[in-house]
């Protein structure tokens, strides 16, 4: 299949689901409170079950890819450090700073990365992508807390940080999934079946709910900030780090997994965090919305380029 067609077929179904969510919210079928409640169920139940399911089905051989893990960890730390240096020079307001930095380093690899890699590299590589997600999620948690310390003026105990990571349902889901995978334990069918059923609901529902958050509100006073974040998140950082990944020799499913992290737009959790932890929630919401919409074009372009040069 030619690269153009493929990129289109990978990206469109994802954005049709997001569009459906947007339509439902416009029709008044899916209101803000319900979306938030559903988001909570998605993140505390559906995604953890999905992560568990993806990992327990995979083998150690498929998922334990040290170079990919190291690259992704390096990427997250590097982009975090870079934005910590640059953003404070662009924006003066501490609340906005924290929203912007979160917007740059927190990506939506769960909702977008996993369907992309499934379509690109086949379901047998979902384990690898899930493992990458399992590595970056606690890292985001920890870095999110650092941001709170720096820009929120809050003092946070290390033990509290660790506790919040351990209690994160996604972390629990992946830990259990890895345990089952490593021990080779076979779940009984009557447990495996409902788990697989729930796992299938996570991404479609999450994309619908994500779409229901799309709202075109006041962007005037933060237009510059939104542009800065969206460009760095979706064009500058990917150009640099995908380039680096190619130079380092990552190809095929590995490169697709790396792309699933690097090219995804800002995660909805950036908005949730900003709400809970004194960031600028409106700015975060706008970053998520514009990033998500714009990523339809950029993800398409990235897949096309990488496919065209036969790198994935």
């Amino acid at each position, binding site marked *: 299949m030619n690269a153009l067609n493929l990129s289109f077929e990978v990206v469109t*179904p994802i954005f049709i689901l997001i569009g459906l969510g947007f339509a439902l919210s416009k029709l008044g079928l899916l209101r803000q409170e319900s979306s938030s409640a*559903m988001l909570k169920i998605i993140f505390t139940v559906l995604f953890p079950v999905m992560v568990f399911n993806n990992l327990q089905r995979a083998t150690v051989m498929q998922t334990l890819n040290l170079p990919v893990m190291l690259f992704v960890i390096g990427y997250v730390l590097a982009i975090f450090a870079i934005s910590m240096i640059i953003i404070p020079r662009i924006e003066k307001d501490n609340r906005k700073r924290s929203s912007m930095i979160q917007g740059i380093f927190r990506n939506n690899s769960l909702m977008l990365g996993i369907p992309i890699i499934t379509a690109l590299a086949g379901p047998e590589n979902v384990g690898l992508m899930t493992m990458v997600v399992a590595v970056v999620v606690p890292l985001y948690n920890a870095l999110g807390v650092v941001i709170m310390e720096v820009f929120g003026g809050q003092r946070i105990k290390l033990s509290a940080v660790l506790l919040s990571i351990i209690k994160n349902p996604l972390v629990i889901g992946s830990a259990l999934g890895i345990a089952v995978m490593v021990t080779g334990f076979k779940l009984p069918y009557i447990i495996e079946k*409902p788990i697989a059923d729930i796992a299938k609901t996570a991404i479609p529902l999450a994309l619908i709910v994500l779409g229901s958050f799309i709202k075109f509100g006041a962007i005037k006073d933060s237009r510059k900030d939104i542009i800065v974040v969206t460009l760095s998140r979706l064009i500058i950082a990917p150009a640099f780090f995908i380039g680096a990944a190619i130079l380092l020799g990552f190809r095929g499913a590995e490169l697709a997994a790396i792309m699933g992290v690097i090219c995804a737009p800002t995660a909805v959790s950036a908005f949730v965090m900003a709400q809970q932890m004194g960031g600028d929630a409106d700015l975060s919401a706008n970053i998520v919305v514009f990033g998500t919409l714009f990523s339809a074009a950029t993800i398409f372009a990235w897949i096309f380029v990488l496919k065209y040069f036969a790198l994935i």
Partner: protein
Amino acid sequence: MKELLLSFEIVAPIFLLIFLGYFLKRIKLLSKSTIGTMNKILFNVLFPVLIFNSLYSATFEQAFNLRVIIFTISYLLIVFALAMIIIPRLEPQNAKKSVLIQGWFRGFTLLFGFPIVSDLCGPESTALLALVVALAVPLRNVLAVITLELYSDTKPSIRVMLKNIILNPLIIACAAGLAAMAFEFDMPTIIKKPMEDIAKVASPIALILLGGFFEFSKVKNNLKQILIGVLGRLVITPVIFMGAAILLGFAGIELASLLALCCVPIGTSTFVMSHQMGGDSELAVQLIVIGTIVSAVTIFLWIFALKQLALI
């Protein structure tokens, strides 16, 4: 022994998901208003897409089975007539009469049918079931309106009710699915893919929502009514009509679809309608909850019996 295990493996996952819903409600992750919203999305989007998908991907011969159509309609009309004759002799109160009569002829085929039939006969075999659902849903609604109308003082607008029945998204989806099937319309992948994703979401989410609906109230006062309702729905009418279906020579996918018609507990829409139209909604809830729990055993026994007789 093999059949015993197989029947268990079909029934247990269904009820685990229902239990998960109840659990999520108990830990307050699933609130009444969230359930309300998700139910709306379920009946307006997810189920219609599931119905459309089941029909669209089938051939005309698979879906259009005149014998099954005639059986479905006669079953509903006969059970309705029986209930109209018998129930008023057993129960003096009008508000309870109307709920009990509905309890006999209204099964939640839409919810239980798809997981049962696709597990019994394979996921490709739900087209006939979709047709049964498309017949049963409007007919059951019309009969329910007649019942409630007869036994309540509130006079609902029949025209509005009928309009709602005809404009039901499920009916529209069924018509569209049959049309797409008849004209062998081939949808592009970018539409097919998100529709398949949504179709996979419907049943697990519906089961979780049913569990979230569970409420345990004092059953002492309604003990007799519950017995009449549950026995009529899950034991007496199934024995008569599954017996008839077997004698008439139905087997395989046909019989599995009829099992989903005759042997499933009553659905949540009975509660909604009774609540709106002066039926005893407390009794409706009890029939739904207790019926669902009892059906874990009766559905299991039906599947086991039919398997043992090598009919499915």
